């Protein structure tokens, strides 16, 4: 796997890979645990032109590059029509060079539409990521989802029928969930033939409806004692089913890994277009972090007035860049290149801590390559804290 690590020198220039993220910030309704930048609305005619124009600006920023992925996230990007999706894909193809890119879109089961989804595929989509969460009806209700288990099942079947690669999001750790229920959810996703599964433990994020309910004493919080056991269950089940546990929360059949998400974890460059989207560009050995204007209104206005949607840009310090590289890179099974880390920071990791963590069975090191063991990945916050704050 270490062969996938991209040496610094090809991080820049025309052949350097580039991932494109498009944020579509609308949802038909807002889920109680959601902490994304989302707005309750179905359509917005001003946003698409703004996104297309913002992409042009990004082309100026990055120069000529090789596009390895386009990802439509949100929000609910499946609220976009195939024509809108197609317009964006075509625009990207016009501006940069395609290299067999992965083109993926996130969709919710209840908005399933055979016609639209086939339209997406015809527009170039290669992958769909479905927000299944669970097949368990009471839990779906509790999670505030609009679909039921049967809908989830048929959406999954439809997606698998249309797209060469389908990912299902499964959420676990909700109050009342037994290991059996979780095993059952996984089983149904696997039986359908899903090639990629992202599993998340339900967390209560500040500012969400769940957090407010918790604050009012209506404790809907997840049982954290169970979560490590559940996590083990997920891992064992999926590995048994022939999946690779390639990132903390992500499992894939061989050759079905999310290329787009790998770009984040590998520390590659990505364009962030749409309200509140984050981007990273590396140029002249400097890495810049960008954030687009947060609200759709401000974003569209900024694009109209200045031609660009970026609200803030920050040139990362060497240590922030190196920290990001490590924090993201240790999440994936391929790990990081120590040489690369040194190139960024001009310093090596603390050798004593590093060896101690290797000795504790949390990290492994082979020449240039450093990675977290499967045990270490479960403890990554503590591991990276030790490495970076030692």
């Amino acid at each position, binding site marked *: 796997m270490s062969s996938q690590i991209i040496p610094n020198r090809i991080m820049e220039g025309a052949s350097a890979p580039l991932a494109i993220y498009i944020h579509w910030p609308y949802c038909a309704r807002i889920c109680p645990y959601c902490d994304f930048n989302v707005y309750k609305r179905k359509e917005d005619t001003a946003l698409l032109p703004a996104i297309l124009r913002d992409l042009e600006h990004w082309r100026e920023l990055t120069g000529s590059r090789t596009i390895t992925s386009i990802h439509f996230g949100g929000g609910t990007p499946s609220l976009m029509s195939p024509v809108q999706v197609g317009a964006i894909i075509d625009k990207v193809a016009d501006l940069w060079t395609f290299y067999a890119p992965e083109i993926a879109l996130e969709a919710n089961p209840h908005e399933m539409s055979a016609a639209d989804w086939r339209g997406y595929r015809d527009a170039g989509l290669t992958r769909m990521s479905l927000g299944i969460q669970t097949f368990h009806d009471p839990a779906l209700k509790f999670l505030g989802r609009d679909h039921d288990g049967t809908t989830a099942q048929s959406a999954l079947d439809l997606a698998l029928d249309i797209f060469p690669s389908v990912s299902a999001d499964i959420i676990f750790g909700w109050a009342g969930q037994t290991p059996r229920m979780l095993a059952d959810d996984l089983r149904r996703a696997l039986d359908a033939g899903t090639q990629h599964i992202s599993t998340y*433990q339900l967390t209560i994020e500040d500012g969400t409806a769940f957090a407010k309910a918790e604050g009012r004493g209506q404790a809907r919080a997840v049982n954290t004692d169970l979560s490590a056991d559940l996590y083990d269950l997920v891992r064992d089940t999926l590995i048994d089913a022939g999946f690779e546990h390639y990132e903390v929360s992500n499992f894939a059949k061989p050759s079905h890994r999310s290329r787009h998400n790998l770009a984040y974890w590998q520390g590659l460059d990505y364009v962030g277009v749409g309200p509140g989207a984050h981007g*990273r560009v590396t140029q002249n050995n400097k890495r810049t972090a960008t954030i687009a204007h947060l609200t759709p209104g401000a974003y569209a206005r900024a694009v109209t007035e200045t031609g660009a949607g970026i609200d803030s840009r920050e040139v990362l310090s060497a240590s922030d860049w190196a920290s990001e590289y490590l*924090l*993201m890179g240790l999440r994936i099974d391929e790990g990081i290149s120590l040489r690369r880390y040194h190139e960024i920071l001009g310093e090596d990791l603390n050798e004593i801590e590093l060896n101690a963590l290797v000795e504790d069975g949390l990290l492994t090191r082979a020449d240039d390559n450093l990675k977290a063991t499967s045990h270490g990945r479960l403890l990554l916050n503590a591991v990276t804290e030790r490495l970076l704050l030692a």
Partner: protein
Amino acid sequence: MSEPTDQSLIRNFSIVAHIDHGKSTLADRLISYCGGLSDREMSEQVLDNMDIEKERGITIKAQTVRLEYPAKDGKTYILNLMDTPGHVDFAYEVSRSLSACEGSILVVDASQGVEAQTLANVYQAIEHDHEIVTVLNKIDLPAAEPDRVKQQIEDVIGLDTSDAVECSAKSGIGIPDVLEAIALRLPPPSQQDPDAPLKAMLVDAWYDTYMGVVVLFRVIEGTIKKGMRIRTMNTGASYTVDKVGTFLPKPTDVKSIGPGEIGFFTGSIKEVADAAVGDTITEDKRPTPVALDGFKPAQPVVFCGIFPVDAADFEDLRAAMGRLRLNDASFSYEMETSAALGFGFRCGFLGLLHLEIIQERLEREFDLDLITTAPSVVYTLAMRDGTEIQLHNPADMPDVMQIDHIQEPWIKATIMTPDDHLGGILKLCQDRRGVQTTLNYINGRAMVEYELPLNEVVFDFYDRLKSVSKGYASFDYQAIGLKEGDLVKMSILVNGDPVDALSMLVHRGNAESRGRQMCERLKDLIPRHLFKIPIQAAIGGKVIARETIAAMRKDVTAKCYGGDASRKRKLLDKQKKGKKKMRQFGRVEIPQEAFIAALKMDDS
């Protein structure tokens, strides 16, 4: 005020009471009644100046105010009021205030009745030959029972309460009666010659940011004047008086202060420590022939280590300690090094509240992050070679083979409690190696006296006492000297390494249970790490208790995509801040508060 005051109209008095019985609130009332401050300037407990005093609602420093009270007999009396602290740690402040006065107001909470420090303070006042006016405060409370409390005062203290004044400092009821009683029943100072050679008592001294060192004094005879060259007879230092004044309660300059009066002066005095409390102040060129007796300085009885969390703050800590010491001569510090904690100071305090207050002031006023180690008393080690060592720090304990025996300080504790809580209190005292000396019942209240090793009291005895008595028991103590004890040094090992800052002297008989408690506590206090951590208590090389902190199982952010990278970095910054509150021992991080929290015992 340049007219010499008619000495027969002066009343110098202290307000004494058990903690929280309302001394400071009563003082506020007296001040506002006499018009010392406008309503706008009146803040609650005006005499409690320090932020800490206001926040905690307790008085730490005795304070003085001069009031003019037009009495019903048509004369205007000069009242010099001294508000004193109620907490036992500051009993010393009470005693020096008493020596500057002829009378005391004994305040008793009419709902609570006589408590341990009521006794301690009133006995002190009697020892100073004070006239005493008994005031039953808080009669506004529904639970107030002034008649029962009067009876109790008669039974327990033996004071006549037929002329006791009932009042509510909070609602203002009875305040004129209190003032009348002060004016008519307390004696004036004895008549003295204003032109005699100056003889004044140095009552207190403190550091004021605007005025520098301020000296509070009571003139016995003669007159102190602005511009006068004075000398403190014991230290022999001489100063020129820059300013003479009184507190109204704002410091207000006057030209001179004559016999029987209380006031302050400033001169070019550098440190509070230069102004020895109890010293005699006289005129340099015309000294009084006989000095006052003076009193002995307050001795620190509790010691602990204070270390900066960040070693780079050591010099700032030193400077901050110097500043506090300027104002508080009863606090001592000297440099200490700990293998675990690096450079810091071993500090001495009058008691635990004093310790807490100094620690809080260091953190708050000087913005320092500190680690405080277990408080300890001073042990006297009688060595085989005949020498004696004063051990302030258990970590410095020499080889046991060289020690003949160890002596530890004991106290006599007086505890008052409603008798339904007596059982729990007796058990607590017993568990702390106490020896009961007396037990009396008066009106459903019990008064017990115990002799206890100070070491057993120093730490959380007071908290425990409050909890076993549901807050009803009160407590006072005084030192009664040293006794030999069968003491051993217990070390605590975390992940195999001894942490010197956690070692302590314990009684051999209690060592095992104390060791077990420490290990259990630390198990809860030290967060899980990536590896398992053994915690052991040991005496010499022998492990007497052991616990293990299990390794952490899961600690990872589930979702981390493009937009989360920055958030992750911010999380790292947050962790960095959290880490500042931790101290690294080998590979183990111990939260700074653990050093104290580990010692809290629940005697269950």
